[in-house]
């Protein structure tokens, strides 16, 4: 390692909440070398962002630094006065936030916002304009002049994040802090932004502190990684080594929670981490992870372990670091999963279309979607945002009526377009688990009322019967019945999602739509919820339509997959066929965009630009504008049909399937030879 760019020593920070100081960082030390990229991982509430804000001197007013120091290029920054801190922000420190839309001033055009950064450094106005132009070129914005005239809301999320990165790098900072910079972006856009960050880091030689809950992103972007838990750095080391051979039970547990390497529900169950993150400022005399650790012994409760050095810059804060991998599993190794019955279709959509009117323009959110859901199967629905996944779910549920000519059938019987016109039987049969449990549960109602009301309306249960059944339901989703009187705000995200699942199952549904049910949750909670969904499915024999942008999750849980792009189905088939290939070029690009913990084994395919507007879809094959395997005129002129290329495998592409198989096989071979050498 070369010279140290930034060094945190024993940093201890507390927030004052309701008159009490609660410790959020309990003595965190790490250093980032000049030009090095350091990742900070951990679940939400572990103190990642607090550490970043401490470096930026952005801590909120109720924060108190109890102990420790932060040195940037050897200079203590915690003792600096306002003027010096401002100079620091203008010249040597930059931060990129998760949400680019709120990082940019919505009422100022991009141009002035960007040139201001240069002007603050004393560059003349004319020159600042030139440099801004050059900077936008560097972040691969092809038409900087046009972008500079735009307001932030006129740019897509990916473009906004590029502008923010351009602003952050404009001053050629010593340290760039990236706080979940791609979390709000689609996988394909994320891949591009990550590539861009990597390239720029090479060019500028900036030190980077990369904060993310996504281990795979850290593995891809960082040389070294620190794992943060409850305000303690529990493990540190070279990223590849830490993820290959974790030496702290928390890291081991985290890695086991993630569906990766193409595991499926019928092969292995995901493991989970029992218990909960200790509350803010909880009193933890021993090891911070002890209450949740399967390896914990007496000594762990009483004595805080040191950060044991393990050589090669590795360290683990565990008394039993040499046995971390022996951490016993919490979940059984296998879940009894049902085989999807190949029976009559349970739910069928034919020619499903949905057109919205927007500013007098027709926007086609769904175009001619034909799909069946069979009893007991999980149909995964993937695609970038704007591909029509959620619209399809809303149409199925009857929350928004499809266009005329669309046919919805359940058990061969027509379903009305609007839920209000469907029979109770039909309404009961189709339920949903929403993405965001905060919005999905009425914050003024107790859990008992939320679940009870669903039983009352859907099954006609009353009084004691209803209360008894509500408790049973809560039990079936592993929700402690002592909490039945609680309001949603009193519950953690995972518990809230359990309540939402209990409500969805109240009416004994036959199909449950899951709209990104785990994307708002931490990985350990996500694993528990996924296991619960698999278990419920086995018990009750329901079908799921599972919408997610996380391909690992979709692959884990789904029996069949449907890939959507711009409201059109591009590929439908068994999960293994769709993921294993040959696949549609769009599916290929989606798969290639996802970073994996194992390093890249797939061919590197990047989609250019953003998903086109549904108000003005491209001619011919709608994917031709971004297609990595674009053929030529035929793709522009003619929309390929959704044809059955193999038994049960439908694809919408002009390239014959055998040709795709050959092309994709070649690409993979090239990629593998690259990673092995």
């Amino acid at each position, binding site marked *: 390692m070369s010279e140290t760019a930034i060094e945190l020593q024993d940093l201890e920070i507390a927030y004052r909440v309701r008159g009490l100081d609660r410790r959020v960082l309990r003595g965190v030390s790490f250093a980032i070398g000049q030009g090095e990229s350091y990742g900070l991982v951990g679940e939400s509430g572990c103190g990642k962002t607090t550490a970043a804000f401490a470096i930026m001197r952005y801590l909120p007013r109720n924060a108190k630094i109890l102990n420790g120091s932060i040195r940037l290029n050897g200079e203590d920054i915690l003792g600096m006065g306002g003027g010096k801190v401002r100079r620091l922000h203008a010249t040597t420190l930059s931060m990129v936030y998760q949400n680019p839309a709120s990082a940019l001033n919505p009422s100022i055009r991009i141009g002035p916002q960007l040139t201001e950064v240069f002007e603050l450094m004393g560059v003349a106005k004319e020159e600042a304009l030139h440099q801004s132009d050059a900077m936008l070129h560097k972040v691969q914005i092809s038409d900087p002049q046009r972008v500079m005239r735009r307001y932030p809301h006129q740019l897509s999320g990916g473009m906004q994040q590029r502008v923010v990165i351009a602003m952050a790098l404009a001053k050629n900072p010593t340290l760039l802090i990236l706080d979940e910079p791609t979390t709000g972006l689609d996988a394909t856009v994320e891949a591009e932004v990550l590539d861009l960050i990597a390239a720029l880091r090479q060019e500028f030689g900036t030190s980077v502190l990369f904060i993310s809950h996504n281990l795979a992103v850290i593995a891809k972007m960082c040389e070294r990684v620190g794992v943060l838990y409850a305000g303690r750095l529990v493990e540190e080391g070279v990223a590849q080594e830490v993820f290959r051979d974790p030496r702290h039970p928390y890291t081991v547990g985290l890695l086991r929670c993630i569906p990766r390497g193409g595991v499926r529900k019928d092969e292995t169950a995901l493991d989970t981490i029992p218990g909960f993150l200790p509350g803010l400022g909880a009193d933890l005399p021993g090891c911070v992870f002890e209450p949740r650790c399967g390896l914990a012994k007496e000594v762990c409760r009483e004595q805080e372990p040191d950060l044991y050095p393990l050589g090669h810059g590795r360290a683990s804060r565990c008394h039993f670091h040499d046995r971390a991998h022996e951490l016993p599993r919490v979940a059984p190794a296998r879940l009894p999963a049902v085989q999807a019955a190949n029976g009559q279709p349970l739910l069928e959509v034919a020619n499903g279309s949905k057109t919205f009117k927007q500013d007098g323009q027709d926007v086609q959110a769904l175009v001619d979607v034909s799909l069946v859901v069979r009893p007991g199967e999980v149909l995964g629905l993937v695609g970038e945002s704007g591909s029509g996944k959620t619209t399809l779910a809303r149409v199925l549920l009857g929350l928004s009526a499809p266009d005329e000519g669309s046919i919805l059938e359940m058990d061969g019987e027509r379903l009305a377009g609007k839920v209000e016109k469907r029979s109770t039987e039909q309404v009961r049969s189709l339920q949903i688990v929403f993405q965001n449990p905060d919005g999905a549960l009425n914050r003024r109602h107790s859990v008992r009322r939320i679940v009870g009301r669903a039983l009352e309306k859907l099954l006609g249960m009353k009084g004691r019967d209803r209360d008894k059944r509500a408790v049973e339901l809560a039990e079936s989703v592993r929700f402690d019945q002592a909490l039945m009187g609680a309001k949603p*705000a009193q519950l953690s995200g995972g518990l809230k999602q359990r309540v939402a699942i209990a409500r969805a199952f109240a009416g004994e549904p036959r199909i449950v739509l899951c709209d990104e049910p785990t994307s708002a949750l931490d990985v350990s909670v996500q694993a528990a919820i996924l296991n619960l969904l698999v278990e419920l499915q086995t018990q009750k024999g329901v079908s799921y339509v599972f919408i997610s942008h996380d391909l690992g999750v979709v692959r884990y849980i789904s029996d069949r997959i449907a890939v959507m792009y711009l409201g059109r189905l591009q590929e439908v088939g068994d999960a293994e066929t769709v993921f294993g290939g040959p696949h549609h070029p769009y599916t290929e690009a989606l798969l290639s965009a996802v970073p994996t913990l194992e390093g890249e084994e797939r061919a590197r395919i990047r989609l250019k630009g953003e998903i086109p507007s549904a108000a003005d879809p491209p001619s011919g094959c709608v994917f031709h504008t971004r297609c990595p395997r674009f053929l030529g005129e035929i793709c522009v002129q003619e929309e390929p049909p959704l044809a059955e290329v193999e038994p049960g495998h439908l694809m919408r592409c002009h390239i014959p399937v055998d040709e795709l198989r050959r092309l994709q096989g070649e690409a993979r071979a090239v990629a593998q030879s690259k990673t092995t050498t």
Partner: protein
Amino acid sequence: MTTIDEQSAPIAIPIRPDETKVERNERLRLLLHSPTFLMGCVLAGTWVLCAIFGYLIAPKDPETPDVLNKLVGPSADHIFGTDRLGRDVLSRVIVGARSILIIAPLATILGTVFGTAIGLVTGYYRGIVDEATMRLVDAILAIPLIITALLAVVALGPSRITLILVIGFVFTPIIAKTVRAAVLGEAQLEYVQAARLRNERGPYVMFAEILPNVTGPIIVEFTVRLGYAIFAVATLSFLGFGADPSIPDWGQDISQHYQFINGGVWWAVLFPSLAIATLIIGINLIADAISQVFER
């Protein structure tokens, strides 16, 4: 059943305190620590006490004329002086609080109830009902208060009830707009869709699901409107639309004496005016504090 999740381990579930209760306590604490709120309470509270105990506190009988002591300036006997019939101004100001503090809150409650109902219906159903109602609301907002009052007085005759109805009618659209805006945001949330997915009827969704979540803006709007209502009551009774001439009333007292100001008789106008001003300031201070706490 095998254990497979976070709760199966023998670990106490960290239940947080009931946030709605905590929130309520926190709001109360903030209010009680806010000088604005306390100042407002002192001002408005004084007048509420006067309204309740008026005749008991008043040093003189506010209604007995004393023809020998007409329009006498402030003195030890009559601290605020006497009016054109020789009645004690101080006593009339104290007792006059009652009439205004009955009419204004009732009118505001009337407007809030109707406004909330209209706001819920239009915000939840949207569509043509919403369009039509909102244009009607805009039309009502365009009519000056005085005109509405005149028409009502012609139709119903001058009385306290007329005053309440007029002010309630004028406030309804304003409150409806506020509530509608809040409901529009709430109706986007998934719990409303979840209610539709169990065959819930509109009124239940509006009143049992959405209404409890929009009480904040309604309370804020109510207190703000109350200040305006005081002002409106005073204005209308000044113009003679209101109440019974036999009941002491600030607006009425001002209107009966402003002609004497040129003659140097300032006290019979100034003190009731100050009463109106302090009451409105008090209520507005309270409204300010409440909206700061709710919109924090």
